[in-house]
Protein backbone atom coordinates (compact mmCIF):
# COMPACT_ATOMS: atom_id res chain seq x y z
CA UNK A 1 0.00 0.00 0.00
CA UNK A 2 2.81 2.36 0.92
CA UNK A 3 4.27 1.64 -2.47
CA UNK A 4 1.03 2.56 -4.23
CA UNK A 5 0.88 5.73 -2.19
CA UNK A 6 4.31 6.76 -3.40
CA UNK A 7 3.41 6.02 -7.03
CA UNK A 8 0.39 8.25 -6.73
CA UNK A 9 2.40 10.93 -5.01
CA UNK A 10 4.84 10.91 -7.89
CA UNK A 11 1.96 11.08 -10.35
CA UNK A 12 0.66 14.15 -8.56
CA UNK A 13 4.09 15.70 -8.48
CA UNK A 14 4.33 15.36 -12.25
CA UNK A 15 0.82 16.76 -12.53
CA UNK A 16 1.89 19.69 -10.40
CA UNK A 17 4.82 20.22 -12.75
CA UNK A 18 2.36 20.51 -15.62
CA UNK A 19 0.42 23.05 -13.57
CA UNK A 20 3.56 24.98 -12.73
CA UNK A 21 4.41 25.09 -16.40
CA UNK A 22 0.94 26.57 -16.89
CA UNK A 23 1.85 29.32 -14.45
CA UNK A 24 5.19 29.78 -16.19
CA UNK A 25 3.29 30.38 -19.41
CA UNK A 26 1.44 33.23 -17.75
CA UNK A 27 4.68 34.62 -16.36
CA UNK A 28 6.73 34.71 -19.55
CA UNK A 29 7.10 37.91 -21.48
CA UNK A 30 8.98 36.72 -24.55
CA UNK A 31 7.36 34.66 -27.26
CA UNK A 32 10.24 32.22 -27.56
CA UNK A 33 10.22 31.71 -23.81
CA UNK A 34 6.50 31.00 -24.03
CA UNK A 35 7.11 28.37 -26.67
CA UNK A 36 9.92 26.76 -24.68
CA UNK A 37 7.73 26.67 -21.62
CA UNK A 38 4.96 25.12 -23.63
CA UNK A 39 7.35 22.44 -24.84
CA UNK A 40 8.34 21.84 -21.24
CA UNK A 41 4.70 21.50 -20.25
CA UNK A 42 4.13 18.95 -22.99
CA UNK A 43 7.21 17.11 -21.82
CA UNK A 44 5.85 16.99 -18.29
CA UNK A 45 2.54 15.81 -19.71
CA UNK A 46 4.29 13.02 -21.57
CA UNK A 47 6.03 12.05 -18.34
CA UNK A 48 2.68 12.08 -16.53
CA UNK A 49 1.13 9.84 -19.17
CA UNK A 50 4.07 7.46 -19.15
CA UNK A 51 4.00 7.26 -15.37
CA UNK A 52 0.27 6.55 -15.41
CA UNK A 53 0.89 3.83 -18.01
CA UNK A 54 3.42 2.36 -15.66
CA UNK A 55 1.31 2.39 -12.51
CA UNK A 56 -1.99 1.49 -14.16
CA UNK A 57 -0.32 -1.22 -16.25
CA UNK A 58 -2.02 0.29 -19.26
CA UNK A 59 0.35 0.12 -22.22
CA UNK A 60 -1.89 2.18 -24.47
CA UNK A 61 -1.09 5.19 -22.32
CA UNK A 62 2.50 4.90 -23.51
CA UNK A 63 1.15 5.80 -26.91
CA UNK A 64 -0.46 8.88 -25.47
CA UNK A 65 2.85 9.76 -23.87
CA UNK A 66 4.63 9.29 -27.17
CA UNK A 67 2.07 11.45 -28.98
CA UNK A 68 2.47 14.20 -26.38
CA UNK A 69 6.23 13.93 -26.61
CA UNK A 70 6.51 13.96 -30.38
CA UNK A 71 3.71 16.26 -31.39
CA UNK A 72 3.32 18.65 -28.53
CA UNK A 73 6.80 18.81 -27.09
CA UNK A 74 8.63 18.81 -30.40
CA UNK A 75 6.71 19.35 -33.61
CA UNK A 76 4.29 22.02 -32.46
CA UNK A 77 6.81 24.21 -30.62
CA UNK A 78 9.32 23.93 -33.44
CA UNK A 79 6.66 24.78 -35.98
CA UNK A 80 5.47 27.74 -33.97
CA UNK A 81 9.06 28.81 -33.49
CA UNK A 82 9.50 28.81 -37.22
CA UNK A 83 6.26 30.68 -37.68
CA UNK A 84 7.25 33.36 -35.19
CA UNK A 85 10.58 33.77 -36.92
CA UNK A 86 8.89 34.02 -40.27
CA UNK A 87 6.56 36.67 -38.96
CA UNK A 88 9.34 38.48 -37.13
CA UNK A 89 7.27 39.02 -34.00
CA UNK A 90 9.56 37.39 -31.49
CA UNK A 91 9.91 40.24 -29.07
CA UNK A 92 7.27 40.82 -26.47
CA UNK A 93 4.07 39.16 -25.42
CA UNK A 94 1.39 41.79 -25.42
CA UNK A 95 -0.74 41.46 -22.34
CA UNK A 96 -4.26 42.68 -21.76
CA UNK A 97 -3.71 42.51 -18.02
CA UNK A 98 -0.51 42.95 -16.03
CA UNK A 99 1.43 39.79 -15.29
CA UNK A 100 1.00 40.14 -11.56
CA UNK A 101 -2.76 40.34 -11.79
CA UNK A 102 -2.89 37.49 -14.29
CA UNK A 103 -1.00 35.26 -11.91
CA UNK A 104 -3.23 36.25 -9.03
CA UNK A 105 -6.23 35.41 -11.16
CA UNK A 106 -4.50 32.12 -11.92
CA UNK A 107 -4.19 31.27 -8.23
CA UNK A 108 -7.82 32.21 -7.73
CA UNK A 109 -8.75 29.83 -10.56
CA UNK A 110 -6.78 27.01 -8.97
CA UNK A 111 -8.59 27.65 -5.69
CA UNK A 112 -11.86 27.64 -7.60
CA UNK A 113 -11.14 24.32 -9.25
CA UNK A 114 -10.21 22.79 -5.91
CA UNK A 115 -13.45 24.09 -4.45
CA UNK A 116 -15.38 22.64 -7.40
CA UNK A 117 -13.67 19.28 -7.35
CA UNK A 118 -14.02 18.68 -3.63
CA UNK A 119 -17.81 18.30 -3.31
CA UNK A 120 -18.21 16.57 -6.69
CA UNK A 121 -15.79 13.83 -5.74
CA UNK A 122 -16.73 13.53 -2.10
CA UNK A 123 -16.97 9.76 -2.49
CA UNK A 124 -13.83 9.37 -4.57
CA UNK A 125 -10.43 8.92 -3.03
CA UNK A 126 -8.04 11.75 -2.38
CA UNK A 127 -5.92 10.48 -5.26
CA UNK A 128 -8.55 11.10 -7.90
CA UNK A 129 -9.50 14.38 -6.34
CA UNK A 130 -6.00 15.71 -6.55
CA UNK A 131 -5.53 14.64 -10.17
CA UNK A 132 -8.84 16.13 -11.16
CA UNK A 133 -8.11 19.39 -9.36
CA UNK A 134 -4.73 19.59 -11.08
CA UNK A 135 -6.15 18.89 -14.52
CA UNK A 136 -8.97 21.34 -14.11
CA UNK A 137 -6.56 24.03 -12.96
CA UNK A 138 -4.44 23.49 -16.06
CA UNK A 139 -7.53 23.82 -18.27
CA UNK A 140 -8.60 27.04 -16.57
CA UNK A 141 -5.09 28.50 -16.76
CA UNK A 142 -5.07 27.76 -20.49
CA UNK A 143 -8.34 29.63 -20.85
CA UNK A 144 -6.98 32.49 -18.78
CA UNK A 145 -3.97 32.68 -21.04
CA UNK A 146 -6.22 32.87 -24.08
CA UNK A 147 -8.19 35.79 -22.74
CA UNK A 148 -5.34 37.81 -21.23
CA UNK A 149 -2.90 37.69 -24.13
CA UNK A 150 -3.46 39.81 -27.17
CA UNK A 151 -1.07 38.11 -29.50
CA UNK A 152 -2.56 35.36 -31.67
CA UNK A 153 0.43 33.04 -31.17
CA UNK A 154 0.08 33.15 -27.40
CA UNK A 155 -3.61 32.50 -27.77
CA UNK A 156 -2.85 29.36 -29.74
CA UNK A 157 -0.43 28.29 -27.04
CA UNK A 158 -3.10 28.95 -24.43
CA UNK A 159 -5.52 26.81 -26.40
CA UNK A 160 -3.06 23.95 -26.53
CA UNK A 161 -2.24 24.31 -22.84
CA UNK A 162 -5.95 23.85 -22.28
CA UNK A 163 -5.79 20.64 -24.32
CA UNK A 164 -2.89 19.52 -22.17
CA UNK A 165 -5.14 19.85 -19.16
CA UNK A 166 -7.81 17.71 -20.82
CA UNK A 167 -5.27 15.01 -21.62
CA UNK A 168 -3.95 15.16 -18.06
CA UNK A 169 -7.48 14.53 -16.82
CA UNK A 170 -7.90 11.70 -19.31
CA UNK A 171 -4.72 9.85 -18.39
CA UNK A 172 -5.39 10.17 -14.69
CA UNK A 173 -8.78 8.54 -14.99
CA UNK A 174 -8.61 4.83 -15.60
CA UNK A 175 -9.81 3.23 -18.78
CA UNK A 176 -9.97 5.98 -21.31
CA UNK A 177 -9.93 4.53 -24.84
CA UNK A 178 -7.04 5.27 -27.14
CA UNK A 179 -9.20 6.51 -29.99
CA UNK A 180 -10.11 9.61 -28.12
CA UNK A 181 -6.51 10.48 -27.44
CA UNK A 182 -5.50 10.17 -31.03
CA UNK A 183 -8.38 12.32 -32.08
CA UNK A 184 -7.47 14.89 -29.50
CA UNK A 185 -3.89 14.90 -30.67
CA UNK A 186 -4.95 15.27 -34.25
CA UNK A 187 -7.36 18.05 -33.44
CA UNK A 188 -4.47 19.93 -31.95
CA UNK A 189 -2.45 19.42 -35.10
CA UNK A 190 -5.32 20.53 -37.25
CA UNK A 191 -5.93 23.50 -35.05
CA UNK A 192 -2.30 24.45 -35.31
CA UNK A 193 -2.29 24.20 -39.07
CA UNK A 194 -5.43 26.26 -39.21
CA UNK A 195 -4.03 28.89 -36.92
CA UNK A 196 -0.84 28.93 -38.93
CA UNK A 197 -2.68 29.71 -42.11
CA UNK A 198 -4.78 32.16 -40.21
CA UNK A 199 -1.72 34.06 -38.99
CA UNK A 200 -0.42 34.52 -42.47
CA UNK A 201 -3.76 35.72 -43.64
CA UNK A 202 -4.04 38.21 -40.80
CA UNK A 203 -0.52 39.35 -41.42
CA UNK A 204 -1.06 39.74 -45.14
CA UNK A 205 -4.24 41.66 -44.70
CA UNK A 206 -3.55 43.92 -41.77
CA UNK A 207 0.17 43.78 -41.12
CA UNK A 208 -0.28 43.00 -37.45
CA UNK A 209 -1.13 40.12 -35.19
CA UNK A 210 -2.60 42.25 -32.49
CA UNK A 211 -6.22 41.25 -32.28
CA UNK A 212 -7.19 44.64 -30.94
CA UNK A 213 -6.36 46.05 -34.33
CA UNK A 214 -8.78 43.61 -35.91
CA UNK A 215 -11.61 45.12 -33.93
CA UNK A 216 -11.65 48.13 -36.21
CA UNK A 217 -12.36 45.88 -39.16
CA UNK A 218 -15.52 44.42 -37.70
CA UNK A 219 -18.51 45.08 -39.88
CA UNK A 220 -20.90 45.88 -37.10
CA UNK A 221 -18.77 48.70 -35.71
CA UNK A 222 -18.86 52.13 -37.09
Amino acid sequence: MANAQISYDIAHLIGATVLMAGFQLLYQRRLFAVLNTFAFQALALAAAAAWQAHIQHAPHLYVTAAIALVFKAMIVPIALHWLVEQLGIHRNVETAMSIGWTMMAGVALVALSILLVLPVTANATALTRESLALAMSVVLLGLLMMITRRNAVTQVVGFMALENGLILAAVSAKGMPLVVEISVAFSVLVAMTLFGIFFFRIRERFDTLDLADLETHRGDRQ
Partner: protein
Amino acid sequence: MSAIAWQLLQIVLVVAVSPLITGWVRLVKSRLNGRIGASPFQPYRDIYRLLQKEAVVAHSASWIFRTAPYVTFGAVWLAACIVPAFTTNLFLAQAADLIALVALLGLARFWTALAGMDIGTSFGGLGASREMMIASLAEPAMLMVTFSLSLISGTTAPAQIIAFILSGGVGIEVSLGLALAALVMVAIAENGRIPIDNPATHLELTMVHEAMVLEYSGRHLALMEGAGMVRLTLFMALIGGLFAPWGMAQAGDGAVAVLVGLGAFLAKCFILATALGVFETSIAKMRVFRYADFLGGALLLGLLATIFLYVSEAV
Protein backbone atom coordinates in the same frame (compact mmCIF):
# COMPACT_ATOMS: atom_id res chain seq x y z
CA MET B 1 22.55 19.35 28.60
CA SER B 2 23.35 17.89 25.21
CA ALA B 3 21.03 20.45 23.65
CA ILE B 4 23.26 23.25 24.91
CA ALA B 5 26.43 21.48 23.75
CA TRP B 6 25.07 20.90 20.26
CA GLN B 7 23.79 24.47 20.18
CA LEU B 8 27.28 25.77 20.94
CA LEU B 9 28.68 23.53 18.24
CA GLN B 10 26.17 24.91 15.76
CA ILE B 11 26.95 28.50 16.78
CA VAL B 12 30.58 27.90 15.94
CA LEU B 13 29.91 25.71 12.91
CA VAL B 14 27.75 28.16 10.95
CA VAL B 15 30.36 30.87 11.20
CA ALA B 16 33.25 28.51 10.58
CA VAL B 17 31.97 26.89 7.38
CA SER B 18 30.13 29.74 5.71
CA PRO B 19 33.20 31.38 4.11
CA LEU B 20 34.11 27.98 2.70
CA ILE B 21 30.66 27.57 1.17
CA THR B 22 30.82 31.01 -0.40
CA GLY B 23 34.34 30.24 -1.61
CA TRP B 24 33.11 27.03 -3.17
CA VAL B 25 30.28 28.81 -5.01
CA ARG B 26 32.81 31.30 -6.36
CA LEU B 27 35.14 28.53 -7.43
CA VAL B 28 32.36 26.68 -9.26
CA LYS B 29 31.40 29.88 -11.04
CA SER B 30 35.00 30.62 -12.01
CA ARG B 31 35.51 27.16 -13.42
CA LEU B 32 32.30 27.36 -15.41
CA ASN B 33 33.42 30.71 -16.75
CA GLY B 34 36.68 29.12 -17.89
CA ARG B 35 38.81 30.69 -15.18
CA ILE B 36 40.95 28.85 -12.67
CA GLY B 37 39.50 30.79 -9.79
CA ALA B 38 40.72 31.37 -6.28
CA SER B 39 40.98 28.64 -3.70
CA PRO B 40 37.71 27.99 -1.85
CA PHE B 41 39.50 29.16 1.30
CA GLN B 42 40.07 32.62 -0.15
CA PRO B 43 37.09 34.21 1.72
CA TYR B 44 38.77 33.39 5.05
CA ARG B 45 41.84 35.31 3.93
CA ASP B 46 39.69 38.16 2.60
CA ILE B 47 37.87 38.55 5.87
CA TYR B 48 41.06 38.40 7.88
CA ARG B 49 42.62 41.00 5.61
CA LEU B 50 39.61 43.30 6.00
CA LEU B 51 39.72 42.91 9.76
CA GLN B 52 43.31 44.08 9.79
CA LYS B 53 42.52 47.26 7.89
CA GLU B 54 41.43 50.45 9.56
CA ALA B 55 37.78 51.37 9.13
CA VAL B 56 37.04 54.55 7.21
CA VAL B 57 33.79 56.22 8.19
CA ALA B 58 32.21 59.17 6.41
CA HIS B 59 31.87 62.47 8.24
CA SER B 60 28.10 62.39 7.87
CA ALA B 61 27.72 58.92 9.42
CA SER B 62 25.81 58.58 12.67
CA TRP B 63 25.91 55.78 15.22
CA ILE B 64 23.49 53.74 13.09
CA PHE B 65 26.19 53.28 10.48
CA ARG B 66 28.73 52.06 13.01
CA THR B 67 26.40 49.69 14.85
CA ALA B 68 24.89 48.21 11.69
CA PRO B 69 27.66 45.65 11.00
CA TYR B 70 27.42 44.24 14.51
CA VAL B 71 23.63 44.19 14.63
CA THR B 72 23.38 42.72 11.14
CA PHE B 73 25.95 40.04 11.77
CA GLY B 74 24.51 39.26 15.21
CA ALA B 75 20.94 38.97 13.92
CA VAL B 76 21.91 36.76 10.99
CA TRP B 77 24.10 34.63 13.21
CA LEU B 78 21.29 34.24 15.72
CA ALA B 79 18.94 33.26 12.91
CA ALA B 80 21.44 30.71 11.66
CA CYS B 81 21.62 29.17 15.12
CA ILE B 82 17.91 28.45 15.09
CA VAL B 83 17.86 26.40 11.92
CA PRO B 84 18.85 22.83 12.70
CA ALA B 85 21.88 22.03 10.57
CA PHE B 86 22.93 18.62 11.84
CA THR B 87 20.68 17.90 14.81
CA THR B 88 17.19 18.93 15.84
CA ASN B 89 18.24 18.77 19.46
CA LEU B 90 19.09 22.45 19.85
CA PHE B 91 18.68 24.66 22.87
CA LEU B 92 17.38 27.60 20.85
CA ALA B 93 14.96 25.49 18.85
CA GLN B 94 12.18 26.49 21.21
CA ALA B 95 13.17 30.12 21.52
CA ALA B 96 12.28 31.01 17.96
CA ASP B 97 10.39 29.45 15.08
CA LEU B 98 10.29 30.09 11.35
CA ILE B 99 8.27 33.27 11.80
CA ALA B 100 10.90 34.60 14.18
CA LEU B 101 13.55 33.50 11.71
CA VAL B 102 11.96 35.58 8.96
CA ALA B 103 11.73 38.50 11.36
CA LEU B 104 15.35 38.18 12.50
CA LEU B 105 16.49 38.34 8.90
CA GLY B 106 14.13 41.30 8.57
CA LEU B 107 15.87 42.98 11.50
CA ALA B 108 19.25 42.57 9.83
CA ARG B 109 17.87 43.97 6.61
CA PHE B 110 16.15 46.88 8.35
CA TRP B 111 19.34 47.96 10.02
CA THR B 112 21.46 47.51 6.91
CA ALA B 113 18.99 49.55 4.88
CA LEU B 114 19.14 52.32 7.47
CA ALA B 115 22.92 52.19 7.36
CA GLY B 116 22.71 52.56 3.60
CA MET B 117 20.70 55.73 4.03
CA ASP B 118 22.78 57.06 6.88
CA ILE B 119 25.61 58.61 4.91
CA GLY B 120 23.27 60.51 2.64
CA THR B 121 24.53 59.32 -0.72
CA SER B 122 22.27 58.52 -3.60
CA PHE B 123 23.64 54.98 -3.98
CA GLY B 124 22.88 54.12 -0.39
CA GLY B 125 19.31 55.29 -0.79
CA LEU B 126 18.96 53.42 -4.05
CA GLY B 127 20.13 50.19 -2.48
CA ALA B 128 17.92 50.59 0.57
CA SER B 129 14.88 51.41 -1.51
CA ARG B 130 15.31 48.43 -3.81
CA GLU B 131 16.17 46.07 -0.99
CA MET B 132 12.98 46.97 0.85
CA MET B 133 10.97 46.48 -2.34
CA ILE B 134 12.45 43.01 -2.74
CA ALA B 135 11.87 42.22 0.92
CA SER B 136 8.28 43.39 0.78
CA LEU B 137 7.54 40.42 -1.46
CA ALA B 138 10.16 37.91 -0.33
CA GLU B 139 9.17 38.04 3.34
CA PRO B 140 5.49 37.28 2.77
CA ALA B 141 6.49 34.49 0.40
CA MET B 142 8.59 32.90 3.11
CA LEU B 143 5.78 33.29 5.61
CA MET B 144 3.45 31.50 3.21
CA VAL B 145 5.96 28.67 2.96
CA THR B 146 5.93 28.58 6.76
CA PHE B 147 2.15 28.51 6.67
CA SER B 148 2.00 25.45 4.44
CA LEU B 149 4.71 23.66 6.41
CA SER B 150 2.88 24.38 9.63
CA LEU B 151 -0.33 23.00 8.15
CA ILE B 152 1.44 19.81 7.13
CA SER B 153 3.29 19.26 10.36
CA GLY B 154 1.19 21.23 12.83
CA THR B 155 4.09 23.35 14.02
CA THR B 156 6.14 26.36 13.00
CA ALA B 157 9.32 25.32 14.78
CA PRO B 158 11.88 24.08 12.23
CA ALA B 159 13.18 21.38 14.55
CA GLN B 160 9.69 19.97 15.04
CA ILE B 161 8.91 20.13 11.33
CA ILE B 162 12.07 18.18 10.56
CA ALA B 163 11.28 15.65 13.25
CA PHE B 164 7.81 15.24 11.77
CA ILE B 165 9.12 14.70 8.26
CA LEU B 166 11.77 12.28 9.48
CA SER B 167 9.15 10.28 11.34
CA GLY B 168 7.58 9.48 7.95
CA GLY B 169 4.40 11.36 8.73
CA VAL B 170 4.32 12.89 5.29
CA GLY B 171 4.69 11.50 1.80
CA ILE B 172 5.76 13.29 -1.32
CA GLU B 173 3.25 16.08 -1.27
CA VAL B 174 2.57 18.42 -4.16
CA SER B 175 2.44 21.17 -1.56
CA LEU B 176 5.94 20.36 -0.38
CA GLY B 177 7.17 20.69 -3.94
CA LEU B 178 5.49 24.04 -4.37
CA ALA B 179 6.79 25.23 -1.00
CA LEU B 180 10.30 24.16 -1.98
CA ALA B 181 10.09 26.09 -5.22
CA ALA B 182 8.87 29.17 -3.37
CA LEU B 183 11.58 28.85 -0.73
CA VAL B 184 14.31 28.54 -3.34
CA MET B 185 13.06 31.69 -5.05
CA VAL B 186 13.02 33.51 -1.71
CA ALA B 187 16.50 32.24 -0.90
CA ILE B 188 17.82 33.61 -4.19
CA ALA B 189 16.32 37.01 -3.42
CA GLU B 190 17.34 37.10 0.23
CA ASN B 191 20.94 36.25 -0.59
CA GLY B 192 21.11 38.71 -3.44
CA ARG B 193 22.00 36.08 -6.02
CA ILE B 194 21.43 36.16 -9.78
CA PRO B 195 18.80 36.70 -11.23
CA ILE B 196 17.71 39.17 -8.52
CA ASP B 197 21.00 40.75 -7.58
CA ASN B 198 24.57 40.10 -8.53
CA PRO B 199 26.89 39.60 -5.56
CA ALA B 200 29.92 40.35 -7.69
CA THR B 201 28.77 43.50 -9.44
CA HIS B 202 29.82 47.03 -8.78
CA LEU B 203 27.97 48.42 -11.73
CA GLU B 204 25.98 51.25 -10.22
CA LEU B 205 22.65 50.74 -11.88
CA THR B 206 22.26 47.06 -11.15
CA MET B 207 23.48 46.65 -7.63
CA VAL B 208 21.15 46.35 -4.68
CA HIS B 209 22.83 44.89 -1.64
CA GLU B 210 26.26 46.14 -2.66
CA ALA B 211 24.88 49.66 -2.95
CA MET B 212 23.82 49.64 0.69
CA VAL B 213 27.19 48.53 1.99
CA LEU B 214 29.18 50.64 -0.46
CA GLU B 215 30.58 52.94 2.23
CA TYR B 216 31.83 50.18 4.49
CA SER B 217 35.46 49.33 4.86
CA GLY B 218 37.77 47.49 7.23
CA ARG B 219 36.21 45.41 9.97
CA HIS B 220 32.77 46.82 9.22
CA LEU B 221 32.92 45.51 5.68
CA ALA B 222 34.28 42.19 6.95
CA LEU B 223 31.24 41.79 9.18
CA MET B 224 28.82 42.82 6.46
CA GLU B 225 30.35 40.30 4.05
CA GLY B 226 30.46 37.71 6.79
CA ALA B 227 26.77 38.25 7.47
CA GLY B 228 26.07 37.58 3.81
CA MET B 229 28.03 34.34 3.94
CA VAL B 230 26.29 33.17 7.10
CA ARG B 231 22.95 34.00 5.52
CA LEU B 232 23.77 31.81 2.55
CA THR B 233 24.68 28.95 4.88
CA LEU B 234 21.47 29.52 6.80
CA PHE B 235 19.34 29.12 3.70
CA MET B 236 21.23 26.01 2.65
CA ALA B 237 20.68 24.52 6.08
CA LEU B 238 17.04 25.49 5.90
CA ILE B 239 16.38 24.04 2.47
CA GLY B 240 18.48 20.97 3.16
CA GLY B 241 16.91 20.48 6.56
CA LEU B 242 13.27 20.97 5.67
CA PHE B 243 13.17 19.26 2.33
CA ALA B 244 15.95 16.70 2.61
CA PRO B 245 16.32 16.05 6.33
CA TRP B 246 18.08 12.73 5.89
CA GLY B 247 20.95 12.10 8.24
CA MET B 248 19.83 14.71 10.75
CA ALA B 249 20.41 13.66 14.34
CA GLN B 250 17.48 13.89 16.71
CA ALA B 251 16.85 14.31 20.41
CA GLY B 252 18.30 11.35 22.30
CA ASP B 253 20.80 10.45 19.58
CA GLY B 254 24.41 10.06 20.58
CA ALA B 255 27.61 11.57 19.27
CA VAL B 256 27.84 9.14 16.34
CA ALA B 257 24.47 10.26 14.98
CA VAL B 258 25.59 13.84 15.34
CA LEU B 259 28.76 13.09 13.40
CA VAL B 260 26.62 11.54 10.65
CA GLY B 261 24.44 14.65 10.80
CA LEU B 262 27.48 16.87 10.40
CA GLY B 263 28.64 14.89 7.41
CA ALA B 264 25.20 15.02 5.85
CA PHE B 265 25.01 18.78 6.45
CA LEU B 266 28.34 19.40 4.77
CA ALA B 267 27.38 17.15 1.86
CA LYS B 268 24.08 18.99 1.41
CA CYS B 269 25.82 22.35 1.49
CA PHE B 270 28.34 21.10 -1.08
CA ILE B 271 25.59 19.93 -3.43
CA LEU B 272 23.49 23.07 -3.00
CA ALA B 273 26.51 25.34 -3.42
CA THR B 274 27.50 23.58 -6.62
CA ALA B 275 23.92 23.81 -7.88
CA LEU B 276 23.86 27.52 -7.04
CA GLY B 277 27.09 28.09 -8.93
CA VAL B 278 25.76 26.29 -12.01
CA PHE B 279 22.42 28.08 -11.81
CA GLU B 280 23.99 31.51 -11.46
CA THR B 281 26.28 30.92 -14.41
CA SER B 282 23.49 29.75 -16.67
CA ILE B 283 21.06 32.58 -16.10
CA ALA B 284 20.99 36.30 -16.74
CA LYS B 285 20.11 38.99 -14.24
CA MET B 286 16.62 40.43 -14.52
CA ARG B 287 15.54 44.00 -14.87
CA VAL B 288 14.59 45.60 -11.56
CA PHE B 289 10.89 45.72 -12.22
CA ARG B 290 10.75 42.07 -13.17
CA TYR B 291 11.59 41.27 -9.54
CA ALA B 292 8.02 41.94 -8.60
CA ASP B 293 6.76 39.27 -10.97
CA PHE B 294 9.41 36.80 -9.84
CA LEU B 295 8.83 37.28 -6.13
CA GLY B 296 5.11 37.74 -6.51
CA GLY B 297 5.29 34.36 -8.20
CA ALA B 298 7.05 32.99 -5.12
CA LEU B 299 4.34 34.45 -2.90
CA LEU B 300 1.62 32.89 -5.03
CA LEU B 301 3.43 29.56 -5.05
CA GLY B 302 3.46 29.67 -1.28
CA LEU B 303 -0.26 30.40 -1.31
CA LEU B 304 -0.86 27.53 -3.76
CA ALA B 305 1.15 25.22 -1.54
CA THR B 306 -1.26 25.98 1.27
CA ILE B 307 -4.39 25.66 -0.80
CA PHE B 308 -3.28 22.37 -2.33
CA LEU B 309 -3.17 20.75 1.07
CA TYR B 310 -6.94 20.68 1.10
CA VAL B 311 -7.17 18.31 -1.85
CA SER B 312 -4.49 15.95 -0.68
CA GLU B 313 -6.27 15.49 2.63
CA ALA B 314 -3.25 16.53 4.60
CA VAL B 315 -5.48 18.88 6.57
